[in-house]
């Protein structure tokens, strides 16, 4: 039988699978299905719907709740925040890998650099210095922490041109420099870079950062003791 010839039978199949046909209609339709593979296949494909319809709540059909329009903005704002986090993580990964090559070449010093999102608290013996004599709008601060491997330096930089390369170093008592790594200042806000140098903090006289073509240096106290974490402002006029 052709599909067109089956049309009347076909159009009963909905009522058939839902059990809505009279007994006579049902028997006739069953008999047709017995002999017609196409209609049988169609009935079989509709039969599961008879099982599914009962689990729907007909009261839910009129209300198709739509999310409020501003939800899109809220999602976008959260994602934008996440994107900044992601980029920093990526940057940190890139720098860590890039610098591991440099470390192998420069066996004298272990140099690691990481841009971190939050600043863990400083421990005993830390020194906090603020760089003085800076151009208007620029602020540079550093917290130095003695570590078993040397010195950890947390640099806070604010207000310099985005993309500026900053090279950080420690100055030894004999005036020579020990590099502590580099970072690129990227954002308008305050960014903290964590750098480490193999030089012991007790052997360092000053901490410096060369930002672009300008160098800023802040002297360090010789002894690091109980008052070490207090703020201290220094000048850099003899070095810049």
């Amino acid at each position, binding site marked *: 039988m052709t599909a067109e010839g089956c049309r009347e039978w076909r159009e009963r199949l909905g009522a058939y699978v839902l059990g809505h046909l009279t007994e006579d209609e049902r028997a006739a339709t069953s008999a047709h299905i017995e002999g017609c593979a196409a209609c049988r296949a169609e009935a079989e494909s509709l039969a599961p719907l008879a099982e599914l319809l009962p689990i*729907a709540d007909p009261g839910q*059909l009129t209300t198709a709740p739509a*999310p409020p329009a501003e939800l899109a903005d809220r999602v*976008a704002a959260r*994602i934008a925040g996440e994107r900044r986090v992601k980029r920093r993580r990526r940057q940190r990964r890139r720098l860590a890998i890039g610098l591991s090559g440099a470390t192998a070449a420069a066996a004298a010093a272990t140099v690691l650099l990481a841009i971190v999102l939050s600043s863990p608290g400083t421990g005993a013996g830390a020194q906090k210095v603020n760089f003085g004599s800076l151009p208007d709008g620029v602020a540079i601060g550093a917290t130095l922490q003695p570590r078993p491997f040397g010195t950890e330096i947390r640099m806070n930089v604010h207000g310099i041109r985005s993309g500026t390369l900053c090279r950080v170093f420690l100055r030894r008592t004999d005036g020579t420099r020990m590099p502590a790594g580099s970072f690129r200042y990227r954002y308008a806000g305050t960014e903290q870079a964590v750098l480490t140098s193999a030089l012991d903090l007790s052997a360092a006289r000053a901490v410096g950062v060369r930002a672009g073509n300008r160098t800023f240096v802040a002297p360090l106290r010789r002894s690091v003791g109980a008052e070490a974490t207090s703020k201290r402002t220094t000048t850099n006029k003899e070095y810049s």
Partner: protein
Amino acid sequence: MQTGIEMTEHALADERDVREAYAAHSGELYGFAVRSLGDRGLAEEAVQETFLRAWRAGERFDPELGSLRTWLFAILRNVVIDLGRARAARPSVAVGTPEEGHEPLEQILLSWQVEEGLRRIGDEHRRVLVETYYRGRPYAEVAADLGIPEGTVKSRVYYGLRALRNALEELGYDG
């Protein structure tokens, strides 16, 4: 060495991808979230969290394993469970959570799929299915109400079920 550093291309590689995914799927995700959480505010939270998690895990999405929509629904499902747990931990509002409520989450998902499928089919088709199936009214009565022959009610039930079958396939029903 450099190849391992760059993020691999993925479905939610930038914010434009997220916007597109949001435009395409937020309505459905929100609908299911409302259905399962029973609260629009919580549903908004769930949708927001879903896109955030999707964004964070964007590189883990593999289009060869399934559609973005399926992936987002899998994330939402976990978010809804988490929100349900969080709500259950606050006894004052712990009413009908997916975890301890009367319907398990899988059942709610199935119900929502059928309801969403029924919303998607044409008004005429939905109408006859609601009248004849859910309200159990005789075909002749529905035909008189709608001013159409009884045979047309019958054929609309058939075409309505076919449309529902197709809609459920689109909605990922794989039963």
